[in-house]
């Protein structure tokens, strides 16, 4: 069974989960609240429509709402399935374990796309009040890429969650370790000796370029490369650990 079939299996399951629905509601409520507060406190002309969209996504990431949601969904899809036995049911089908891990990862990627692009769409509707600059149409591809960078940041955390979940069935331990990984990555970013190789610093570099800073193609490739190395590396480790793991429950 190929990755595509497993991804479809995981996606149709994920989008029926109550936790996934609750996550969508929380994120969109926070998005609406932030937009309404801005509506009430910032008169027309004092704010840019583009800013409300990027600020809204950035705020949800800074408040750890997006990383926490990504970790919760990822930890649920492994730990809860393991303790309930549904992972055992899946592993007794003719499907490779690394395909299961990749399928789950892609399903969560689609879910995070829905979340982040959903925030962008809701913010866009509110942002009409403040209006957009004349070159907004040409900025849309950049805006979509900005959303993608935020999604990739969270997908690194998801891949790390899969590594932790291969060693424990405790959802609390997995979630704590994964959020801890994200917080430590934020702290490490402040150390100039290693910041070049942290995924968060490279994501920030990309965001600054996309928001209108000086664009250097080489630097952009480097940053994208580092983020993908994190994702692929962590997924490989997770797949290797899962391959060797006994399914006891």
């Amino acid at each position, binding site marked *: *069974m190929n990755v595509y*079939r*497993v991804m*479809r*299996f995981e996606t*149709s*399951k994920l989008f*029926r*989960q*109550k936790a996934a629905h609750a996550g969508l509601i929380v994120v969109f409520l926070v998005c609406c609240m932030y937009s309404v507060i801005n509506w009430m406190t910032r008169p027309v002309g004092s704010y840019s429509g583009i800013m409300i969209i990027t600020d809204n996504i950035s705020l949800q990431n800074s408040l750890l709402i997006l990383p926490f949601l990504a970790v919760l969904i990822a930890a649920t899809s492994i730990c809860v399935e393991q303790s*309930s*036995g*549904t992972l*055992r*049911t899946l*592993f*007794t*089908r*003719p*499907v*490779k*374990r690394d*395909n299961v891990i990749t399928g789950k990862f892609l399903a969560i990627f689609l879910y995070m796309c829905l979340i982040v692009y959903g925030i962008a769409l809701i913010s866009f509707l509110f942002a009409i009040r403040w209006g957009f600059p004349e070159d907004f149409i040409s900025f849309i591809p950049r805006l979509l890429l900005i959303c993608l960078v935020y999604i990739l940041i969270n997908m690194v955390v998801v891949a790390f969650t899969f590594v932790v979940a291969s060693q424990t069935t405790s959802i609390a331990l997995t979630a704590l370790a994964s959020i801890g990984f994200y917080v430590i990555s934020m702290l490490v970013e402040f150390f100039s000796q290693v910041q070049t190789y942290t995924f968060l610093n490279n994501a920030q570099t990309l965001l600054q370029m996309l928001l209108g800073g000086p664009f250097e193609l080489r630097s952009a490739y480097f940053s994208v490369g580092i983020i993908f190395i994190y994702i692929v590396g962590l997924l490989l480790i997770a797949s290797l650990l899962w391959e*060797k793991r*006994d*399914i*006891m429950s």
Partner: protein
Amino acid sequence: MSAITCTSLTKTLDKNSVVDDITFEVEEGTIAGILGEDGAGKTTLLKLITGLLKPTSGTCTLFDADVTRNPAKALKGVGCMVGEPAFYQDLTAQKNLELFAALFQTGPDEVIDLLDITFPSTKVRYLSSTMKKLLGIAAALLGEPRLLILDEPLALTPSFRDHVKNLLKEQKEKGNTVLVTTCIPADLKELASYGVVIREGKPVSQGAIKNLDLKGVNP
């Protein structure tokens, strides 16, 4: 040709041998059974056969494909129900079957009819253990497997036992192979042509059913 070949299969957990040096073969197109009391190691043995557990030593092949080396390849054409059937609690029986059927690019209607499942729109969390077991057998039958590995498929209420027994016999008549576990010797005698009796993870008797030594196993 052998459908299942286990050679010196051993599994040690925390220095205890839960499966100890089990060797047997199941011929294609037959029903074989593993008999043992609760805690004898039947489910652990099935987990080893289906690749859920990695053996400490020994090998297991399904139709010549090594389960330990490549479980996905070995499990092609194999339908399994190992341990208590586990499904997504918030989804209905039908939705669960649809999900797993989609993996085989098929639908669940055929197995629903085959198992006479009368509760397709009930959420799994509200199903009784017999209903879950029937659902587990139905899920194992998805994709028309040529080898069925079922853990205690007859641990059902009496009205369903005969139905499942007939279904297993039909599978044999179709030329498919069936491996079941049970703790009731009479079930093994009625269904299987080959059996392995295990106690505390060790094989105590094995061979053709008529020659099997059932001493020490509760009738």
